[in-house]
């Protein structure tokens, strides 16, 4: 029997120890695709977090009804339903952001984090714990996107959340495609270094 983990630990594992982007490397497409600015990263993170929490909750509630064999298709339909909800809500209330994120909103369906958490956590835990897990993962994902978006916007545009800090041209490459890959590469290397240093300290 697994040791039940506390609420706080359940939440924090998604944010730091098992951060979906930096540690598990899941959901890379939106991570790279929409983070040309901090606002986009935040919006995409929030949309994904909503889908994560709701689909984890729904799947935890119906897990005993679904036959094991059709588990995955059933999960995908539930996730797709919540993605459609987000899509319609964003089109109605935040049309500008919706335009910016475009294709990546419907693509939350195939974001590996959502299905991964459904399969690995929500299908074998209670509704409450699953919601917390979804929230932790969602916050972790949002944090990762925000960090990447902020760095790219700062370097590429010399601005923060759309406000120009210095009246000069940034390093344009950072808001373009290559900048996304290179920034994520360096962030992951830094994370590895930090983790290693921590391990060495505790020994």
């Amino acid at each position, binding site marked *: 029997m697994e040791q039940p983990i506390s609420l706080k630990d359940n939440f924090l594992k998604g944010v730091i120890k098992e951060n979906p982007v930096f540690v598990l490397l899941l959901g890379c497409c939106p991570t790279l695709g929409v983070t040309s600015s901090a606002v986009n990263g935040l919006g995409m993170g929030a949309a994904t977090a909503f889908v994560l929490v709701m689909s984890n909750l729904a799947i935890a509630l119906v897990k005993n009804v679904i036959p094991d064999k059709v588990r995955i298709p059933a999960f995908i339909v539930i996730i797709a339903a919540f993605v459609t909800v987000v899509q319609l809500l964003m089109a109605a209330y935040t049309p500008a952001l919706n335009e910016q994120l475009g294709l990546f909103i419907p693509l939350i369906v*195939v974001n590996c984090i959502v299905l991964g958490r459904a399969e690995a956590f929500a299908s074998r835990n209670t509704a409450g714990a699953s919601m917390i897990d979804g929230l932790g993962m969602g916050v972790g994902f949002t944090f990762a996107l925000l960090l990447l978006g902020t760095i790219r916007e700062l370097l590429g545009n010399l601005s923060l959340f759309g406000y120009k800090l210095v009246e000069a041209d940034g390093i344009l490459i950072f808001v373009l495609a290559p900048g996304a890959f290179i920034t994520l590469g360096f962030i992951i290397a830094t994370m590895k270094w930090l983790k290693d240093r921590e391990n060495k300290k505790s020994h």
Partner: protein
Amino acid sequence: MQYLIIIISSIFINNIVLAKFLGICPFLGVSKNTSTAVGMGAAVVFVMTLSTIMTYLVQHYILLPLGIAYMQTVTYILVIAFLVQVVEIILKKVSPDLYQALGVYLPLITTNCTILGVAILVIQNNFNLLQSVVFAVGNSVGFTLAIALFSTIREQLDNADLPEYMQGIPAALITASILSMAFMGFAGLV
């Protein structure tokens, strides 16, 4: 001419992986050696072409006449999952050789976002059926080209002397960045 433009722009200028950031997971995940990368690419070409035709027909003959276009995401993902299963079963029966070659990659393709992405892009761009097929072929060939190129570089990377923390994924990402810069050179070709 118009079809040639679609092909060239989807392979080189708007490469689906290096410029549009779709399908990064298989791009990083199955690019450790060239033969698996090419296998994955071939499976994607096959499934993407079929699924784009299917979703196009579903969109124009089922969703639009019924006025339920908002069900797009849900229907498409089901059509794709269904199609992948059917392809797998048929291949197993009809061509065991091809199944041997592509089999292991097929289940992975359902959650490959290039497939769903191209299906949706086709509708957004208002393509007709023939344009859609050309677009799907172009994008899937672009995917194969990117992943095959990337895997040849990664094979060499294993022998390189890298700083400890840059090994593995960080080095791969920086390689991808340089590859993406190279592809930016194609901009303005059409």
